[in-house]
């Protein structure tokens, strides 16, 4: 019986490798996986001999499915990978470095936003090609800000604090100056990345959360709760965040590019000119934010790397990226795509264009997601009161060091997979 199963599997294998058609297996997540299928007919027309087989994964199951695929030797040829996941798959040795291929292609490496491309470079080698970008900045209600006597969105922390205080002074009961959902680590992470101190020290061997820089960012963040500017809300406390924004429950909201589309769609027409976006304020002037987004990666085990690379090149083309943007709202990672009127004329996207020149990558260690989760938990504890900032950063460092124990051992053994 086992033999029969094996034979059946082999047949599946051979039917896929039919004579003159190369099949590229492409895994994509969520909405992107749905939309990308509309871009593929043109690719298959201009690349006869290549057929793309898209498999759509839900985001919630994607990580697990990819690791299982790796363990079972069943990885696809290319895949959409959140750029914080790249270090993990590099540690697994699952990805194919792309420096040589990119150098030979028509894509100019310098056309990518530097901070975004940097998230794909692990130990000096390019492991993925940015597909779309994500960063966090300020969404705000211009009308409410003006009513509080502030003409321009803040660009420094001190301006920001002043605006928050002015908003709080006029706030009706139940409404707040800013919304920082406690289940999101990104606002705190963005503020922390603005600092010069790295979040991890000694090549990612230890946490560096007791540094002056992180403490400063952490204190500023929890200060917004302490001073009553931000409510102790998690995402589930607001049944509908867009309605609440329209109602004026909060004036500032730190969020990402997908909300441009959501606010356009969901806010009543009367509020059309009442909201805007602005780059994230920094300590003394416009500050950095997170270099997020997703990349396209090529798997080392892929038997059809050349064909798969052609698909990556196609999806990286500015005109294709713009069509992708039109359908998903995802922002393109190449500056040349932003020259197009569709993006250049979008007042809400403009702040993102500016912010993207100032984005920084989170620490590139496989354990980062877990560390950032601890960061969120500790921050929530401090925000809800009862734990001092001093104790919190010490605790964060010790939890981080525990998580990085295996990494330290690996580095000491010098046995890291290349």
């Amino acid at each position: 019986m086992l033999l029969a199963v094996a034979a059946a599997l082999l047949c599946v294998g051979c039917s896929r490798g039919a004579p003159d058609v190369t099949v590229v297996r492409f895994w994509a997540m969520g909405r992107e996986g749905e939309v990308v299928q509309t871009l593929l007919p043109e690719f298959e027309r201009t690349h006869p001999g290549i057929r793309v087989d898209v498999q759509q994964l839900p985001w919630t199951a994607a990580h697990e499915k990819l690791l299982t695929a790796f363990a079972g030797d069943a990885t696809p040829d290319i895949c959409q990978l959140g750029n914080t996941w790249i270090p993990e798959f590099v540690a697994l040795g699952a990805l194919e470095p792309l420096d040589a291929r990119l150098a030979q292609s028509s894509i100019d490496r310098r056309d990518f936003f530097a901070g975004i491309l940097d998230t794909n470079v692990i130990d000096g080698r390019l492991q993925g090609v940015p597909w779309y970008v994500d960063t966090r900045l300020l969404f705000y209600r211009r009308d409410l800000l003006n009513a509080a006597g502030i003409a321009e969105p803040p660009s420094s922390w001190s301006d920001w604090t002043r605006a928050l205080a002015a908003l709080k002074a006029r706030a009706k009961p139940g409404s707040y100056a800013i919304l920082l959902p406690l289940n999101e680590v990104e606002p705190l992470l963005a503020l922390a990345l603005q600092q010069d101190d790295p979040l991890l020290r000694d090549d990612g061997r230890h946490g560096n959360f007791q540094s002056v820089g992180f403490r400063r960012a952490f204190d500023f963040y929890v200060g917004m709760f302490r001073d009553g500017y931000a409510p102790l809300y998690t995402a589930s406390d607001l049944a509908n965040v867009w309605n609440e924004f329209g109602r004026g429950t909060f004036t500032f909201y730190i969020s990402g590019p997908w909300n441009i589309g959501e606010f356009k769609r969901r806010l009543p027409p009367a509020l059309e000119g009442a909201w805007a976006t602005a780059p994230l304020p920094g300590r003394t002037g416009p500050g950095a934010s997170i270099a997020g987004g997703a990349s396209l990666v090529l798997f080392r085990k892929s038997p059809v790397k050349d064909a798969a690379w052609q698909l990556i090149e196609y999806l990286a083309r500015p005109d294709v990226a713009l069509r992708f943007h039109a359908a998903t709202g995802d922002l393109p990672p190449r500056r040349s795509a932003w020259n197009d009127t569709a993006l250049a004329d979008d007042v809400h996207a403009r702040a993102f264009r500016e912010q993207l020149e100032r984005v920084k990558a989170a620490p590139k260690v496989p354990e980062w997601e877990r560390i950032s989760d601890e960061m969120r938990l500790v921050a929530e504890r401090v925000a809800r009161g009862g734990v001092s900032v001093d104790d919190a950063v010490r605790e964060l460092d010790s939890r981080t060091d525990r998580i990085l124990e295996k990494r330290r051992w690996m580095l000491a053994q010098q046995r890291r997979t290349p």
Partner: protein
Amino acid sequence: MKRQHVAWCFVGPALVVIAVFFALPVLAAFAMSLTDFDIYALADLRNLRVVGIGNYVELLQRPLFWQALGNTLYFVALGVPLSLGVSLGAALLLNSRLTRFQSFFRTALFAPVVTTVVAVAVIWRYLLATRSGFINYVLGLFGISPIDWLGNPHFAMPAIILFAVWKNFGYNMVILLAGLQNIPRDLYEAARIDGASSFAQFRFVTLPMLAPIVTIVGILTVAGYFQLFAEPYVMTQGGPLQSTVSVLYFMYEEGFKWWNLGNASAVAFMLFLLIFAVTLLQMRGAGRGSAWQ
């Protein structure tokens, strides 16, 4: 001798299935719990370290593990009696001769059991919503100010207990109902002739006759409630402030979110030992109970 061979032939297939799909995975999981299997080990087995009971020792030092254990015990201690009480109450009502439309109510009360946890949890999240939820609306009629059910660390677990009890009581109710219907009517008749009040009938006829079934139902419920997972997974993701992280949820995060399979296996065995110990205690307690009877 020959009969024995035949017997082995009949038992064999079942034993093989049990060995392959139960004993082997359990042994493998136990072996894994003695290592630090993680993504590095997945990449290259040379990165695997045998840590002996290190995972267990470390677990006992993790505050989050203790918190998860505390949350789970809280859930069991409050949820099981509540669930049994509601089940018994509903069964008694359904068994009463005064109840009309018995089969309708039986089906209606059993319905939550057969629904999908995930789908119902979404509905309960609407019911529990702070501003627009029906539960807070009803409380508001009594002048109670809105409670942030799923966002407040003090109320999240009670909300989960409420949901779990509602979701599960129908199952026990049906079993208890079957038990009630098996109690001979003449016992009640005799009690009535002796002049027993309805409470005394319940206390001295119904409860003792039902005791073995209550024990079984209790054991099953405790074992089930210790494995709390789906409710917090869907409704709170363990929050707020990790007040709804159960042992199983903790294991899931260790294993499938952070891919520390060694640690996760250790958690699984700790949970197994815990449930095993509690069940033993219950059995012993039940044995004493029947002796008293």
